[in-house]
Each structure stands twice: as structure tokens, then as C-alpha cells.
């Protein structure tokens, strides 16, 4: 199906179902239950899930396949956002030119940075990418202010020209208001709510458009992983020496891979601008580069679905887990005698709410040490355990002792 093996198609199908059903799956708690704050099914967060999913898918093409660890991918993300914003300002409020342009510009920037950084490998490569990204960040925040808006960032405004004809999203005002990013008239922010019993589900256009783009990205990633090009990238990771004595020039392979990966980051950046038309230099900061590394490793570097899972998990932690406060904890431990509940609240408190980084860090360490294959390996281990258990009764070979 679609040129994929049964297994890969199954994987794509699972991801597609998850993306489509996310507004329902992520809102498991009734609106006015005490658990409602753990509902993650609101448009803003769901958009972030899929956009960072794209970012991580792209990062994984570089890191997962070739083992080259870039610490500068946020530069491509931010550059994609700026490029997209300019299209929204100059051309049209339609998101399509914005997204296309963000991919192209990020591709050009990654070609330049990759060209230089790929002269080195290992830690030196990582440091070079980090240096370039920090340079991009500093420039965006200072010298390039006319393009980037400096510290205040870049927003859509009433004075933007938007030269395309109106039916293509041109025109600078929408009845005196700044027009909102849209796809042929459908606004990204537009949602409709469905209430079923005590539950409330929000279906948002922007989320579904970003979700479709993520599914396409995921499909492209599968094709790339299974292609001869993907095989060569795995060979780069395994033994570059053997590769060159086998008649293969590793340099263009690496550069192509770096550019493809950078374009995915640009795509994610463009989508961010399309969902929320504002961007600041902090999107390029090294913490953002580090985040995508964490996502990929946490989910499982080199696996297809791992980066998407990792992106979801980290964004969930950042937005939901971080909201647990002292009052919530006190509610949870209320069934205990007074002194005891105080004790537990004090113990647990540093790990939740603003302390979510601590929990994430511990989780990350646990994954690195016990599950080098990330969440995907966890899933595989469970799968094997389950298979073995269900197989035991059938096979009567277990000796009775």
C-alpha cells in the first residue's frame, strides 16, 4: 500500500488514527471533573504536538540515520518561522506560500551551515552546528532587527502590504482588523466544539492541517528510511572508512541528509508561524536545539515513530505536568492523616509543577541507562513479554518443577 510494506503501512495507519482521534483521546476527563486539568486536547497544545513531531522526524533523519548530532537545528526552525512570517506579511495571509517559503529558506541556510559543519565529524561537528545556531540567534536578536524585529519579534500588522489578490489571501485588513492566517478562507484558529455527555472535544482546523502535514512528513520519512539513500546514511553511521573504499563519496550523502533534515525543521517553523503569527529570536536559542535532541533520544533515535512519541511526551510534560501545583497535590493526598499528607506533598512537590524539568531529567537518565532504544524499546519489550506470556500455555515444554 502506497509503496510501503505491510508493517510500515500499519505504522502509518496507527499514527494517522492517533492524529485524527487526538482531540478525543487527549481529553479523557469530563470538563468539570477534578482531573480536567490533565486534558491535553486543546488546539494550541495539539498543534504543538504535531509541529514538534515534524521537527523531531526531521532531526531523526540526520541523527537517527547517520549518528551526526546537530546542536543547531533550532536555527532552521527559527529561520523557517521568520521566512513564513514574511510571506504572511508581504504576500498573503494564506499559509501555503508561507510554508513553502519557510522550507526553501531553511533549506538554503542548512546548505550553507552543513557545507561548513560537515567538514568535521563527532563532537566537532556538534560544536560547529551549535556555534552557527548561536550566531543566528544573536544576529536575529540584534543586527538583523530590520528583518527579524529584534527583541520584540515579528508579527502580522495592519500596515502589511499583502500584495496577492484578495481571494488568494491578499489585502492588509479584514474589516479594520489584522487578518488571521488561513487556508483559502479557513482560519487556522477556527474550531468547533462537540459536547458528548460531560465531555467536551474541540476540533480545530489549524491542528488538522498541521496534522496532515505531519502525516505527509512521516510518510516521506518512512520512504527515505527504506530507500537506497537511507541505506547509505546508515552505512555512514556504521563505517565511513568502508564506505569510501567501496566507491561511495560520503560528503554529498551527508550534505543532502543535513539539508533534508533542515528543511523539515523549516517546515515546522513555518507551521508555527502559520498557527500563531508571531516569532521571536528565542525560537533559535540553543535550548530549543537541545529540546529536539531530547525528544528524539527519549522516543528512540533511529526508529520511525520514536521522535513523534518523544515530542508528544516532552510537550505534554511542559504544558500539563507543569501545571500540577501544591493545591492539586494536597487534594490528592487529602485521604491521609494530616502530618503524613504534608510529608508526601513536600516530597513530591519538587518533582511536579515548576519542577517538571527535574522529573524529565530523571526520566531521560533512566532511558539512557536502561532503555537506549527509548520509548520504542520499552514498547518492544512489553510486546515481547506479552507474546511470551500468551505463548507459554500453548507450548507445553515448560518443565514442571
Amino acid at each position: 500500500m502506497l509503496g510501503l510494506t505491510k508493517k510500515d503501512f500499519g505504522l502509518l495507519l496507527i499514527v494517522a488514527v492517533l492524529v485524527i482521534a487526538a482531540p478525543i483521546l487527549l481529553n479523557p476527563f469530563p470538563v468539570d471533573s477534578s482531573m480536567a486539568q490533565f486534558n491535553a486536547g486543546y488546539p494550541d497544545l495539539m498543534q504543538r504536538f504535531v509541529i514538534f513531531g515534524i521537527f523531531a522526524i526531521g532531526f531523526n533523519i540526520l541523527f537517527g540515520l547517520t549518528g551526526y548530532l546537530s546542536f543547531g537545528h533550532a536555527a532552521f526552525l527559527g529561520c523557517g518561522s521568520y521566512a513564513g512570517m514574511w510571506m504572511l506579511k508581504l504576500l498573503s495571509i494564506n499559509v501555503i506560500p508561507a510554508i513553502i517559503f519557510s522550507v526553501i529558506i531553511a533549506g538554503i541556510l542548512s546548505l550553507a551551515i552543513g557545507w561548513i559543519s560537515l567538514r568535521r565529524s563527532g563532537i566537532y561537528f556538534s560544536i560547529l552546528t551549535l556555534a552557527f545556531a548561536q550566531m543566528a540567534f544573536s544576529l536575529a536578536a540584534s543586527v538583523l532587527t530590520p528583518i527579524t524585529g529584534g527583541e520584540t519579534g515579528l508579527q502580522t500588522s495592519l500596515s502589511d502590504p499583502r500584495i496577492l489578490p484578495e481571494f488568494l489571501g491578499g489585502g492588509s485588513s479584514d474589516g479594520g482588523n489584522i487578518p488571521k492566517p488561513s487556508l483559502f478562507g479557513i482560519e487556522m484558529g477556527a474550531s468547533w466544539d462537540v459536547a458528548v455527555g460531560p465531555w467536551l472535544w474541540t476540533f480545530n482546523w489549524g491542528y488538522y492541517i498541521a496534522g496532515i502535514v505531519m502525516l505527509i512528513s512521516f510518510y516521506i520519512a518512512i520512504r527515505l528510511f527504506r530507500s537506497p539513500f537511507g541505506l547509505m546514511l546508515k552505512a555512514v553511521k556504521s563505517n565511513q572508512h568502508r564506505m569510501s573504499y567501496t566507491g561511495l563519496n560520503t560528503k554529498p550523502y551527508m550534505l543532502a541528509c543535513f539539508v533534508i533534515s533542515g528543511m523539515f525543521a523549516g517546515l515546522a517553523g513555518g507551521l508555527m508561524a502559520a498557527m500563531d503569527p508571531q516569532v521571536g529570536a528565542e525560537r533559535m536559542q540553543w535550548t530549543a536545539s537541545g529540546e529536539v535532541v531530547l525528544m528524539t533520544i527519549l522516543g528512540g533515535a533511529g526508529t520511525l515513530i520514536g521522535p513523534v512519541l518523544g515530542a508528544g511526551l516532552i510537550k505534554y510534560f511542559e504544558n500539563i505536568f507543569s501545571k500540577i501545583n501544591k493545591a492539586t497535590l494536597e487534594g490528592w493526598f487529602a485521604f491521609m492523616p494530616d502530618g503524613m499528607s504534608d510529608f508526601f506533598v513536600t516530597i513530591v512537590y519538587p518533582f511536579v509543577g515548576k519542577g517538571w524539568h527535574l522529573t524529565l531529567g530523571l526520566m531521560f537518565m533512566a532511558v539512557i541507562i536502561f532503555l537506549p532504544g527509548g520509548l520504542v524499546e520499552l514498547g518492544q519489550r512489553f510486546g515481547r513479554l506479552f507474546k511470551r506470556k500468551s505463548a507459554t500455555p500453548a507450548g507445553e515444554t515448560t518443565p514442571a518443577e
Partner: protein
Amino acid sequence: MGILEVKGVNKRFGGLQALGDVNLSVQENSVHAIIGPNGAGKSTLLNCLVGKLIPDTGSVMFDGQSVLGRTPYEINQMGISRVFQTPEIFADLTVFENVMIPCFAKRDGAFSLQAYNPVRKNRDIHDMAEAILVDVNMQDKRHMTASSLSRGDKRRLEMAMCLVQQPRLLLLDEPTAGMARADTNNTIDLLKEINEKRDITMAIIEHDMHVVFSLAERITVLAQGTPLVEETPENIKGHPKVREAYLGEAQV
């Protein structure tokens, strides 16, 4: 004129003269053995042929073209493949993937951006890889990860990776080291067959004299970086200079 002509090659590592005025001519379709004690410079000589090292002076011509100044992948694309002294394989990949990669390099050149159609749709590549695994008798190990192979199997895999490219010149650096006797004999048979049926010229470094005398048509003895003699196997056995080279080593 041989297919490979090495003339006046010198290579120094600091104060050590690893190669001193080496001349070597390998005739097309022949098997040429290079023997000599440890540290004689045999591997260094091969390194100069495949672009890993650049000789200080001298020339290396392959099929009338100089290989000096070319990168390893260019030299491979000219038709020279090499089996290394310590196996160089793609350890994280499966045996089958290991042999497919050189097939792609042979078919599509040093770089080609085929990022869309899956590997499995390349029937010709699959058939080539399948056939060579049968030749080296490893078809039952095709799904194994290369790092889990025995040392002997790693060598056979590396040999398969070189052979599948149908090179014009195959350089083998101690191809049977670490192999069991039976495997060594299989390897001899394989190399013989390949040399005869597929017209692949071979230069082989070997310490195992059984292998050398079963395969070689010419033998060059290298000692301390300099060729002592070049002879047929019959004439080399009792050659006084050869004795001297190996005895010299024994005394150290």
C-alpha cells in the same frame, strides 16, 4: 605492461623508511602474492595503491592511469577493491545490506540521491547480492547483524563485498587470517574460481604459505620496505634471499 605498475615508490614515517624504492608489476588476470616478515611494509604498500596513503616519491599506475592524488572512492570506481587486514564491514547492518551497498556503488556511482523508491524494489541489486552470498556460502546468515559474525565470516563477508563489485583488481590483505583450515581451503577455491572465471586480477598478502603456493603465479618478497626478489612459486621455495629475510626475522 601490467595492469598495475608501481615504480620507485618511497614512503617514510618520521625516521622509518616503510617503503624504499618499491617496483612492482602485476599482470592482468594473474594472482600476484606479496610476502614478507611482519613490519615489512606490505600493508603500507597497499595503502599507497588505494589512496589511503600518498607515497613520498614514485608513481602508481592502474590500467595506464595514475591513482596518486585520487580519493579512495575514486580509486574504487576505477576498479580497485580492497580487503583489509582487520575486516572493514558495516557492523551495525545485516549481512545482506552489507553486500547490497557495494552493488549500489557499482551501479549508481559515488553518489546518487534515490531517497524515494525502496531498496527492495531494486531486483537487480537483490539478485547480485543473493548470488554472491551463495558464492561465499553465507546465504543462511543473510539476516544476521554483521557484528555478530565470527572473525572468519567477517572476512568472507568483506571479500563478498569486494567481489560483488566485479573489480578489475582485487587487493587482499591476509584474507585467511583467523580462518579455520576448512574455511581457508574454501577461500582458496573461491579465489581461484573467481580469478579464472571472472578475470579478476589479484594481489594478495599472505603469511600462510599454503595459500600463497596454491594461488600465486608470481611472488614478490618484501623485507624492510624493499622488494628482494620476484619469482614464480617454484623458484621461490629454496631461494637464499628469501631464507635470509625470514631467518633475519626469526633471530629478532
